[in-house]
């Protein structure tokens, strides 16, 4: 079986500074794969490159068997790769419904879009209650829900979530994490970038630890959670 996403020796540079120094990993359909690591490890750069917002300096990315390096971002979405960016980036002056509709920008099946908007409201009832409200007026957690709901609107084969728990209260974070588990249960494939290593690894089938642009350790979520160096560096234990 071939992987849904294959990343081979990916390098990304900002000018002369190399932020991602040749990483390789795969995501199998139906899996949750997580990239963990500290600020500046290159996790967000990796996701932004996969979705086409940044161009890699070298390396190869195959999505669903097709090479997508050098393909513009708006075309990569149409292949079924959705990206919920770090910092949520909802459209603040548009309503919640309009944000969700934009997630389905490339779709033309009106009835299907309506049904999926309803599904987003079922997944996150608070969004349904506030559907006419400008998205900029939502709380951080609600904006995160909207960003996830919006990313799902393109019916992705792979959902990339960048720091979905960032800046959220513990309760809200739990809600987001349990939603990710629910999505996995429906068969969604997810590439999850998190600083909250504990939460991410406990959900993940596969995990990769990034440090200054390289993957330094890989394993199943359970392996990594019990790995001593990971516990020391990322799970806050002495």
């Amino acid at each position, binding site marked *: 079986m071939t992987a849904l996403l294959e990343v081979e020796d990916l390098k990304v540079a900002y000018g002369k500074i190399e932020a991602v120094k040749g990483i390789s990993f795969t995501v199998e359909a139906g899996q949750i794969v997580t990239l963990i690591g500290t600020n500046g490890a290159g996790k967000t750069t990796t996701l932004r490159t996969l979705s086409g917002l940044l161009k890699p300096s070298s390396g190869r990315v195959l999505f669903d068997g097709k090479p997508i390096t050098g393909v513009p*971002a708006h075309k990569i979405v149409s292949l079924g790769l959705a990206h919920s960016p770090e910092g949520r980036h909802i459209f603040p002056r*548009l309503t919640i419904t309009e944000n969700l509709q*934009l997630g389905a920008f490339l779709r033309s099946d009106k009835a299907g879009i309506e049904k999926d908007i309803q599904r987003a409201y079922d997944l996150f009832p608070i969004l349904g209650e506030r559907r006419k409200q400008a998205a900029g007026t939502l709380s951080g957690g609600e904006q995160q829900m909207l960003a996830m709901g919006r990313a799902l609107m393109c019916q992705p084969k792979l959902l990339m979530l960048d720091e979905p728990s960032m800046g959220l209260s513990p309760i809200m974070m739990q809600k987001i994490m349990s939603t990710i588990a629910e999505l996995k249960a429906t068969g969604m494939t997810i590439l999850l970038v998190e600083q909250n290593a504990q939460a991410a690894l406990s959900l993940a089938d596969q995990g990769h630890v990034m440090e200054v642009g390289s993957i330094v350790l890989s394993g199943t979520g359970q392996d990594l959670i019990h790995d001593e160096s990971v516990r020391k560096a990322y799970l806050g234990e002495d």
Partner: protein
Amino acid sequence: MNTLPQQLANGLFLGSMYGLIAIGYTMVYGIVQLINFAHGEIFMTGGFGALTVYLYVLPDGTTMWVALPAMLIGGGIVSVLIAVGAERFAYRPLRGAPRLAPLITAIGLSLALQQAVFNWYPDAKTDINFPQLPFGPWHLGSVSISSGSVFVIVAAPLCMAALALFVNLSRTGRAMQATAQDPDTAQLMGIDTNRIIVIAFAIGGFFAAVAAVAYGLRYGSVKYDMGFQMGLKAFTAAVLGGIGNIYGAMIGGLVLGLAETMATSYIDGIPGMQQLGGGGWASVWAFVLLILVLLFRPQGLVGERVADRA
């Protein structure tokens, strides 16, 4: 004789023209945060495009009922091509460069377009007569309205209404709003933001051409440097209304046009300010108004706070 109704009509005319041009500044700024200082020249070339259609394309003696639409289309095509060409070849390569680079490019492009028309357009060293509509002026009480004024007072609201419908109701309009609010994320939705940017330049160019035809009809001539003053004023109108906001551009244009007309007509009636009236002071009062608005309402009359970008 009471001159107020006449001055209000003049102000409305001038303001509608400012507003039409201001749309081009504000849409481009709203989407790529670039002040396209060549937009005044895009306006000017629209006037020359329309003139060319009349002088060199249409047979002599074509009735204005046929000529005017043809001139609008011709002027529109010229302005849109120049606006889109400027985006593609001058501004797009500089996207991501420091802000000063595209700004200087815009100023250079503005000078280049002026000089190109000055040197290469036949007889363009001075004013060239612009064809006139064969009717009017009409008299409504003490107000005299020329056919040129009627044109812009009809055309400007039509253009604005069409734009508002387009931005709010069409799929491309929604994509424009998304691109203006967050260009990277717009791409993640599948929006081709380069296409959206081209559309913004094209709409701005077309509106500028409409304004240029209005200018020609109203003042009777066009000139290679007509874009400088008008462009500066329209930019002022865009800032006055709140740059980036299309309604702001139109309102800013009207406020500026009315304020300018009122100030030049009536300020010299105020004791002690006899020296400060008349047409020569028009720009002074326009910029005084701009400074006052920016002091007390820096986001412009209908501009939005920029705080909600997370």
